[in-house]
């Protein structure tokens, strides 16, 4: 609805936005204040009001700081550029083709794979003792021992960037597909008629409109790439590690002074993320200027066959890397003895699964509990917010969108670090509910993002008809709107579930080691390098969200098997 005037809110539903604001902003604000206080050595409670920058200078003087900073920065900018390029090229090339739905079907499981599991799979694939080298050894390569190549954990972070790109591509694909229905695709016919090549025509006509909608998710990607800890621990550089890993080390140092250095580092990390976002914003203007120039000069770029093949190849490689990586995880979980250069395990065994089953069940079940509750509660909040928007005729403002996205834009290490200190002081750290609450802060934006467009695309005239039949708003919500929106609602829940399962830092820091989940266990195993164990845990970590994604696709099909119009809704699936 396009009404902007705010009407008085009689129902309790009006409280929901306030609740959401509290959920999102209060922890963030509190943790940032805690961080600043810690970083500047402010002992306000002791009555001593003094601040000093000694922690900040300690961070700057830390060995390898400049390299860590540069690393976070270049990864944070480079990976989204590549991911965006690949996704746009691909969609531009194949949007009209019939195989597109099939690609979308393949992309969804890839989306369900947690970042860390994808990184593990990539690790097993491209490491010098990994699968690709084993395939060609020893017949072609002549290697009887793994070559001493610096591929994974390389100091420049290239394998790290690759691990991020292969997961960013499905996510950007997903948000783009959600944004497509908002754009009038007939424009492509117009530009085709003007003689533009397929790819360039799409980029000129459709991309700008899409970009506006995917801008915030893209910023979330940049923030994640500059500050991720779990992927960095798996496949990132070691000497020196990215700044986020360094901050984690300082945070866990028994030397008290290091704690404030960690806080200072976290604030610098926020600065890096904001700088990367600023550079991106400048880049946007640059690209706009270039595109305008190209448009004015009438460049048509008709000969784009190579570009289309290139886009398709890159997309195929990216998906293939993830799929092959997951397959390798499965192989390793059943491998008994698998020494270089064998391409397949020499001895197969169930031993790893049997011996790990108790721990897999315990940590997997805990992760599932946390994810079900945090995603469920977030879904309830999102539905309540959206319904409140509808009933009160509010259109969500740009500022509100930004507020919803703030948890995704602030580096987790900074935010969760400050929060864990706060929770320790409040005595609620280590509890399951504390972990669930913090998970909700990250799950809510994703659930909202997934559900907002399908919700707005819903034809509200159905509700008008229902009202004329004398039914209340509440009843219409449960009996008209929700059933029709079943597929997007379940998809949003599945995505929220996946986001919660994959959370590492919040579970680790807020849970204080008392709430091990499948993700914390998997990352903890990463350093040992025992591939059998890593494979087993990573598989379970992947299967959990995958189950819910599959359910989210299946349930609507079964529930509405006799409702043709409800079968394949375009938006948000």
């Amino acid at each position, binding site marked *: 609805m396009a009404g902007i005037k705010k009407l008085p809110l009689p129902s309790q539903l009006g409280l929901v936005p306030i609740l959401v604001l509290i959920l999102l902003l209060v922890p963030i604000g509190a943790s940032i204040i805690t961080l600043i206080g810690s970083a500047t050595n402010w002992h306000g409670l002791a009555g001593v009001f003094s601040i000093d920058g000694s922690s900040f200078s300690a961070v700057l003087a830390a060995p390898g700081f400049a390299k860590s900073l540069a690393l976070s920065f270049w990864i944070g900018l480079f990976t989204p550029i590549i991911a965006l390029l690949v996704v746009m090229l691909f969609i531009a090339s194949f949007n009209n083709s019939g195989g597109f739905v099939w690609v979308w079907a393949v992309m969804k499981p890839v989306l369900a794979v947690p970042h860390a599991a994808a990184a593990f799979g990539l690790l097993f694939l491209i490491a010098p003792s990994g699968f690709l080298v084993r395939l060609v050894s020893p017949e072609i390569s002549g290697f009887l021992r793994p070559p001493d190549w610096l591929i994974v954990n390389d100091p420049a972070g290239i394998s790290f960037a690759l691990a991020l790109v292969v997961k960013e591509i499905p996510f950007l694909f997903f948000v783009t597909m959600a944004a497509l229905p908002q754009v009038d695709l007939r424009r492509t016919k117009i530009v085709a008629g003007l003689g533009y090549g397929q790819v360039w025509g799409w980029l000129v006509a459709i991309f700008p409109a899409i970009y506006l909608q995917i801008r915030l998710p893209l910023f979330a990607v940049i923030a994640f790439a500059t500050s991720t800890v779990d992927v960095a621990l798996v496949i990132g*550089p070691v000497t020196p590690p990215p700044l986020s890993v360094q901050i984690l080390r300082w945070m866990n140092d028994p030397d008290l002074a290091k704690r404030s250095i960690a806080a200072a580092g976290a604030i610098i990390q926020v600065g890096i993320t904001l700088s990367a976002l600023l550079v991106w914003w400048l880049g946007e203007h640059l690209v706009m200027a270039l595109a305008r120039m190209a448009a004015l000069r009438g460049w048509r770029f008709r000969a784009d066959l190579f570009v289309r093949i290139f886009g398709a190849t890159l997309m195929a490689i990216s998906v293939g890397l993830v799929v092959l990586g997951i397959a390798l995880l499965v192989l390793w979980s059943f491998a008994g003895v698998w020494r270089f250069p064998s391409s397949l395990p020499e001895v197969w065994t169930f031993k790893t699964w049997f011996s790990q089953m108790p721990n897999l069940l315990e940590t997997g079940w805990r992760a599932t509990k946390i994810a079900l509750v945090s995603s469920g509660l977030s879904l309830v909040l999102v539905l309540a917010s959206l319904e409140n928007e509808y009933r009160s005729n509010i259109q969500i403002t740009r500022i509100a969108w930004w507020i919803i996205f703030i948890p995704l834009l602030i580096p987790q290490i900074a935010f969760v670090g400050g929060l864990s200190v706060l929770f*320790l002081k409040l005595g609620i750290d280590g509890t399951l509910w504390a972990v669930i609450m913090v998970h909700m802060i990250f799950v809510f934006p994703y659930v909202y993002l997934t559900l907002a467009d399908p919700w707005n695309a819903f034809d509200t005239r159905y509700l008008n008809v229902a009202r004329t039949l004398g039914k209340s708003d509440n009843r219409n919500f449960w009996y008209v709107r929700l059933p029709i929106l079943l597929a997007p609602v379940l998809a949003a829940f599945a995505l929220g579930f996946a986001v919660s399962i994959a959370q590492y830092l919040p579970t680790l820091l807020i849970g204080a080691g008392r709430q091990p989940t499948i993700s914390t266990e998997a990352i903890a195993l990463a350093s040992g390098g025992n591939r059998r164990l890593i494979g087993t845990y990573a598989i379970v970590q992947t299967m959990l969200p995958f189950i819910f994604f599959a359910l989210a696709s299946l349930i609507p099909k079964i529930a509405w098997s006799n409702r043709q119009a409800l079968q394949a809704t375009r938006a948000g699936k």
Partner: protein
Amino acid sequence: MSGFKKLHALLAGAFLALSPASASEPDPQNWDMVLAEAKGQEVFWHAWGGSENINAYIAWVGEEVESRFGVTLTQVKISETANVVARVLAEKEVGRTENGAVDLVWINGENFAAMKRQGLLLSSPWSTFLPNYQLTDFENKAVLTSDFTEPVDGLESPWGTAQLTFYYDSASSAFVDGVPPASLDDLEKWIEANPGRFTYAAPPNFIGTTFLKQVLYGLVDDISVLRQPADKETFDLVTAPLWAWLDRVQPNLWRSGQVFAADTTNLKTLLSDNEIDISMTFNPGEASSAVFEGLLPQTTRSFVMDYGSVGNAHFVAIPFNANAKAGAMIVANFLMSPEAQARKSNEEIWGDPTVLAFEKLNAEQLSYFDSMASGEATLGIEEAGATLSEPDAFWSDALDAEWLRRYGAGN
């Protein structure tokens, strides 16, 4: 002082004098009371979780203390013991003097020294009063009473001993006649002749720091200087040959020294993957354990440096604010029992050496140790050579910091 205040002070003093050092700390000399108090408690044992063998052993301990004493044991897997120290310290800072998150911690060395000096442990000695402590070899093994030169003072309970041991595949072509490089000179020459086939764990990981200390022992003139802390000039002077040695081997390390191993498990995996030819561990039984598991070939053998091997003991300690102190004491005592110690040193399970003195054990207790045979890859007592005791805890921290500065930042 007014009359009322005097009375108040008198009563307070009397009360303090009558109560034990800390009213909430169980007295191990009254073992029946400890047993009774421990029943039904849940003990959170923060222990390094990077080795599946050890985790499986700890799970067995959990089953035993549950069935025998009614204590529920939960292992909180950690990657760095320093994190646990930081945790307890943070709890002390915010004033949490009860219901701490950590009941028992697997600890030694500089972490123990940090906890002891910052008052994070129990206030009075307890481990020396545990029933099974009498069976340990504390008279002869100095490592059980002096932890990196810091007196134990009964604040931590011995669990196992350790000695830096290297292991390798004797059938590999990298070793002439299967003979490993057992001196620092030989090792340096071997690394040069086999580039990319040797690495160590990056400090501050424990085995990485121990490797630095091992090399330092081999290069320093007067080892007595390591028994106490040193100022900056002395430190630079003493460690100069160490950095020179590391500088020389750095370009020929695995991955050219751009990446280091993460811990002992990672080193074992690298050897198993044939990425490196020499690995190292604290546990003299680890190589045999790995052979038994099928991870390493039957031709795997161990060796130590010819001038001695850095040795220490590892312990379990109870923080001051632990929630289940009695339960933790029960667990600590059980860990020292002959049955638990024998199972621990069984190479098919873990292979960690025992802290017990065989002369003190009766026939039944000895029988637990009977069925074990050492694997081929484990060194005999004579071959294991002299033990070099750990230097003062200062050296661990100082070496870590300097190593990070020189090699940890990709210089």
